[in-house]
């Protein structure tokens, strides 16, 4: 069946005709053209589909599109402002916390959820926050370093 779904994505109210079985990830990628969130495992283990729902990091492959109305969704496309990267994105670029890039949108959003709640996280807190995001390239060291750096740039709020 088809159904009309309206929800807030990156600050804008969006309406799309979706399949009743669509996950939030399918709504974002296939109906709204926001392909920043990726499908890796499709069952909540890899975190490449991470988006923010009301500020909380969630796996968009494990949420139905029909659960989205009434909630504010933020994807990686919603972070850069006026052509300038978000400080977390900028730090990942400068420090080299990305290689193939497939996990990067999810990692950036997990980091954003963390820094929004905890402006000066410890190493352990950063590693816990991104434990649900698998990266097979970097070994995580530079990602953790970049999140520390972004925290400093954002002023340790």
């Amino acid at each position, binding site marked *: *069946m088809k159904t009309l779904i309206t929800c807030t994505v990156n600050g804008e109210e969006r309406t799309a005709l979706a399949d*009743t*079985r669509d*996950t939030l990830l399918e709504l974002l990628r296939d109906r709204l053209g926001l392909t920043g969130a990726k499908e890796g495992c*499709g*069952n*909540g*283990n890899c*975190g490449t589909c*991470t988006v923010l*729902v009301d500020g*909380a*990091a*969630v*796996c968009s*492959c*494990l*949420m*139905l599109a*029909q*659960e989205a109305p009434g909630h504010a969704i933020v994807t990686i496309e919603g972070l850069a402002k006026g052509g300038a990267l978000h400080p977390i994105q900028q730090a990942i670029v400068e420090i080299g916390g990305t290689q193939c890039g497939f996990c990067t949108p999810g990692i950036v959003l*997990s980091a954003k*959820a963390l820094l929004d709640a905890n402006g000066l996280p410890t190493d352990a807190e950063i590693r*816990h*926050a991104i*434990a*649900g*995001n698998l990266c097979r390239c970097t070994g995580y060291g530079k990602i953790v370093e970049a999140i520390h750096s972004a925290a400093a740039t954002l002023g340790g709020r």
Partner: protein
Amino acid sequence: MRDFVYERPQTMAQALTLLTAGDAKVLAGGTDLIAQMREGRRSAGCLVDVKGIGELTRISMLPEGGVAIGAAASAAAVSRSAIAANYPAVAQSARLIGGVQVQNRASLGGNICNCAPSADGVPALVCHAAEARIAGPAGTRQVPLEEIFVGPGKIAIEASELLVSIVLPPPPARSAVAYLRFTPRREMDIAIAGAGTYIRLDQRGVIAEARVALASVAPTPMRAPLAEQRLVGERPTLALLEEVGRRAAHEARPISDTRGSADYRRSLVAVLTMRALGDCCGQLGIDVEATSK
């Protein structure tokens, strides 16, 4: 995946009507159900999203003491809630379920109803003598949580019924609960074995009551009654905790699978039970090393 109708009832009565109609499944966090439906392991003609029902998402202090945790409350909500003060092991266990993304969606009730022998949310609840409040067409019933587990994926809650909340009695004075698990990876892993323990001391510092709840070592979460009996009437010493660990290991009924052999799981039960009891003693200000000298 078979097509389904998505419903979001606002009241328990509406939810029960939908469930009674048949071919329906309860959707809370969806972190198990949606993955299982996509893989074709489960199917339903109707998904009943219960997150719109206040009683199922609230975590409320009960007037008579204790707390009711709505079955659809997320693991993140449980770990951040005020119950962490009186039930620290319940809050800590909620932080072991998947990673942050999963904890933000997965519900405590779903962790229970998915009925995995390895469910990290369960042993601490059993140690607290939790009861399951279940609503159905014939009314509401409340049963000890540990009695609703039948086998992997099988639970003694009918398709027309709904797990409403987990009810925890107030923790008695001079009591403590701890849950420890072993996973090869630090996070995002399924326990090879887990042990939850509860002890209550009397005025003299003698153990008056004990519970040992094990995970991942039987078809369901299980109690270890012989280990519990050995504790009662004793003062905690290192030698006692070691002996109780060995008893619990003997009572465990593990299988060998890709995550670990039965023998390895038994060895883990001995160590985890001993350490969890040591953690309880620590919470109660007892230094077991010192009492053993």
